[in-house]
């Protein structure tokens, strides 16, 4: 059976990818953030999963406003890197895990999560930046296959935080019932506090972000109880992306340990956060 070995929560701001693509990670502006990533990257490099399930949102690239699925899963063999209007990121195309995708779609629908499927999906910075945070120098290919899981965080009303946590729990059950002996990592991406448009542009709420970074480990139910209005007020209109961290957290077992955490302001107009958890509950030989 498949095992979940770790979960990574990370911001997915495009400029973090651009800093890597343009060799700026040692600049004064970026160095503190990338230094903060280093211990997590070293640990993850020693714990390569077979597949990463990446929970993210598209930003007007593969998904437009004609149809807005609340939750969707990519089911393709391969996901091209999107041209978001300024050229494709110079990173490898993403290899899919279609058998796992098919299994997850079936299990989640049987678990009353009516998932939209994408057979064709150009993946944008929401997915590729987290892969680069995990693996800064992939060479010709990423170290693992990927199942993209998309959440609508752009058009209001977004799924509730509680629904995201519940989806994560169902996702965890679905992964663990996949009848192949593979290891899986789950990425929850986006956040932390940020507001891009309007008079509150540039909003950073460090108090809320610090609370969230702690509670995502110890008390995700508290975060799931927040309304979308709470997220928008406290973390900004785009800070509501944090609900995607709850999908990741829900997929992990109750027995996790925090490997590393980092928090830095600013990355572009946002607060960048990272939290990495090892999932001990699914470790071979661990008590059930």
């Amino acid at each position, binding site marked *: 059976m498949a095992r979940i070995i770790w979960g990574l929560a990370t911001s997915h701001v495009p400029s973090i990818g651009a800093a890597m693509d343009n060799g700026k990670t040692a600049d004064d502006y970026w160095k503190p953030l990338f230094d903060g990533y280093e211990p997590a990257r070293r640990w993850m490099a020693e714990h390569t999963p077979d597949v990463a399930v990446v929970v993210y949102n598209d930003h007007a690239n593969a998904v437009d406003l004609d149809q807005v699925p609340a939750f969707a899963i990519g089911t393709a063999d391969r996901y091209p890197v999107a041209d978001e209007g300024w050229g494709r990121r110079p990173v490898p195309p993403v290899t899919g895990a279609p058998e796992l995708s098919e299994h997850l779609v079936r299990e989640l629908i049987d678990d009353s999560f009516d998932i939209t499927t994408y057979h064709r999906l150009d993946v944008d910075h929401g997915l590729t930046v987290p892969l680069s945070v995990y693996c800064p120098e992939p060479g010709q290919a990423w170290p693992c296959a990927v199942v993209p899981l998309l959440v609508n965080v752009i058009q209001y009303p977004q799924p509730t935080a509680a629904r995201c946590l519940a989806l994560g729990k169902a996702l965890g059950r679905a992964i663990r019932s996949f009848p192949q002996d593979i290891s899986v990592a789950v990425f929850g991406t986006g956040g932390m506090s940020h507001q891009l448009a309007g008079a509150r542009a540039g909003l*950073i709420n460090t108090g809320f972000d610090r609370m969230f970074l702690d509670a995502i480990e110890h008390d995700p139910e508290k975060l799931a109880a927040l309304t979308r209005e709470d997220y928008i007020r406290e973390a900004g209109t785009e800070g509501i992306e944090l609900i995607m961290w709850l999908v990741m957290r829900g997929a992990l077992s109750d027995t996790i340990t925090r490997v590393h955490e980092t928090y830095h302001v600013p990355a*572009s107009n946002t607060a960048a956060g990272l939290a990495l958890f090892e999932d001990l509950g699914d470790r071979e030989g661990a008590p059930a």
Partner: protein
Amino acid sequence: MTEARDNYLLDVAASRRGYAINRLCGSLKDPENRRRFSEDEAAYCDAYGLSEEQKKAILERDWTGMLELGASIFYTFKLAMLDQKSMQYLGGVFTGMSTEEFMAAMRSGGRNFG
């Protein structure tokens, strides 16, 4: 230029109201569309069915006006990038700051609303 409110939300009503403007901005991810837009912006706006108000906001680069008309920042950002304007530039526009002032505010920990 329009003064920004603090509560823009792309709800279903805004999405309907801003459909044409968002569709136009989204189309700019395609290099051929960027070329056609730059050749004749007004004609491109007409081809995408923008209202006169929306067309004016696009042609004048009234970034806040676009929000008022139902635009989403993720869409209008593609137009900004075509103009080689950054998200920090837009942040400055929305808050009445220069790009440099806005960047300095971010570097000093962002804008705190208590």
